[in-house]
């Protein structure tokens, strides 16, 4: 991965393993988390949360080493001043208001009293809890709790924030709002983020880089844009007559396969476009869309493991 401004990696793991008895949660993980937004993608039980808690010093690795903000990970207590964390599960005291709690968390992160109070107010406004900040958090909806969790994670203006499944439990609208909020927080405020999710859409929309974990191992890592670039594969979406169109293309020497409501033409070259145009005219098909297909992150899982 490209390192920005020659800075060392924010988080770095070297041959990191974690076993819970017979079960291996992490297997020989070696990776770097750079500045920017990194997505940690994997199914439930892939080791995303374990990796995060190891970096945070909550879980002790069985073997291997790691660094946090350039320092030894096993002694990262001072680095914690510049790190924020929002766990996957509920972690807010129900009988305390968001204003009180976020202010307190800023104090515990080392900020002076007045600054803690001011920043808590600002951050709660930023996450959209301005009106609700004096209500006990036990009365909040799931979406509001996720926002309060984000607020406590960024209140001390950290360099790096680790968000574990920040859209868990949210409905589609709530999820979209939360992803927008995370993107805004990361891009506008320049806070680097490590976001874990089992949803590819979350990572596609918010992250610059991606690390795919499967059964505790790093399956892939790279720039998200690299996975989403256009391919040589053409997608032809028609109203009807897919089979007829496929036959017309075959007569012109183009091999097309039906996939749902579309025809897929692999490795389309320049002259193929003219042939496709002619075939559409011949068959009189109603064309909805003709475009190169972009990779999606789901392709990563379709690919056989290296």
């Amino acid at each position, binding site marked *: 991965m490209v390192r920005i401004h020659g800075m060392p990696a924010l988080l770095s793991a070297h041959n990191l393993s974690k076993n819970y008895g017979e079960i291996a949660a992490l297997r020989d993980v070696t990776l770097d988390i750079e500045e920017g937004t990194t997505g940690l993608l994997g199914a439930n039980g892939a080791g995303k949360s374990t990796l995060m808690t190891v970096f945070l*010093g909550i879980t002790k690795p069985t073997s291997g080493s790691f660094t946090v903000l350039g320092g030894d990970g096993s002694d990262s207590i*001072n680095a914690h*001043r510049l790190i924020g964390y929002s766990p996957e599960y509920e972690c807010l005291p129900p009988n305390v208001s968001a204003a009180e709690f976020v202010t307190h*968390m800023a104090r515990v992160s080392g*900020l002076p009293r007045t600054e803690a109070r001011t920043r808590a107010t600002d951050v709660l406004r930023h996450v959209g809890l301005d009106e609700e900040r004096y209500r006990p958090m036990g009365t909040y909806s799931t979406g509001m709790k996720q926002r309060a969790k984000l607020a406590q994670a960024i209140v001390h203006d950290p360099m790096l924030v680790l968000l574990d499944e920040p859209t868990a439990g949210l409905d589609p609208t709530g999820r979209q709002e939360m992803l927008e909020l995370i993107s805004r927080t990361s891009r506008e405020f320049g806070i680097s983020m490590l976001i874990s999710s089992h949803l590819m859409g979350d990572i596609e929309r918010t992250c610059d880089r991606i690390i795919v974990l499967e059964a505790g191992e790093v399956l892939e890592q790279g720039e998200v844009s690299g996975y989403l670039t256009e391919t040589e594969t053409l997608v032809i979406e028609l109203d009807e007559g897919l089979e007829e169109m496929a036959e017309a293309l075959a007569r012109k020497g183009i091999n097309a396969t039906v996939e749902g409501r579309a025809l897929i033409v692999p490795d389309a070259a320049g002259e193929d476009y003219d042939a496709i145009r002619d075939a559409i005219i011949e068959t009189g098909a109603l064309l909805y869309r003709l475009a190169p297909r972009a990779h999606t992150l789901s392709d990563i899982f379709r690919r056989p493991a290296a």
Partner: protein
Amino acid sequence: MIRDQGSGSAASGPAGAGQPEGEVFDLGYRHYDGPRGGRGTAFVAVYADGLRMVTGLGRGTAAKIMPLIFALLAMGPALFIVFLAGVITSFGGDPDDIELPQHHEYYVFTFVVMLLFAATVAPGLLSPDRRNSVIALYTVRPLTSIDYALARWLAFFTFALAFALIPQALLYASFMLSDDSPGGYVKDNLRDLPAIIGVGLILAAFMTAVAMAAAALTTRRAFATAGVIAFIFITAAVGGFGQDILTSEEDRIEYRRIHGPRQGDETQAPDGDAAHFIHLLILPETLGRFSEWLFDRRDTFPISPWYNAATIAAVIGGSFGVLGFRYRRMEA
């Protein structure tokens, strides 16, 4: 004009000719470049929050009622004694003519109030944070889980100490000021001051230790409350049962023949007998004997009074062991 004070969006618009230029401040998100405290700051923040939790500040009304009731219970009788001594003195009488409770006697009463206070309020400083997983947010801040537990421990200890010492200070001031010669009172009762402070410290540490250890063992406040009461009663039952087994009828007859009834010697076993050691498990009485020893209110003990001190130290030490075991590393 819009003045940007951070990384938030900034824009400016033309001001109309002759119109006063207004200013809109877009604070946006501001980075923090000021000082950042470390482990010490974090410890003090958790301690200060613990103080607020004990008093119920920042929590609902219900959370404020319990500490208020206990504060009234702990201070009320002392205030009444002060009032009584004041009235007697103002009518030209001598408060010594009526038997007002003395410092060590008031501590017996304080013990009961403090035990209930510790059992009901102290678990609220630890158990809910584990139950609600708030502890995970502390452990990723610049402090260790042991720091967190100790800061909470100290927060409750501060209140327990206040509950122990403030009524005693009121009594002391009252006795001193109602004496014909306040200076003479201090000179005649020199032992009282260090004893008041010593017993107060030990009592507060004992209550805090037992209650916080119970709170560390469960995520439910009610279980911790029950655990504190159960610990005191079960150890007392074992102590009482044990001493009965270890004291034969011949021992009792022989004991009464030699000593007659001796104050505070419930076991009625010969001095140094094993029954006295098992009797140490009745912790309220052990604390009582420790108090009598410091206040110099008792001449003889069937076993060295240091055993009382050692038992209390063992309970406090053991509770720190429990706290350390439970908070040494918070695995998620």
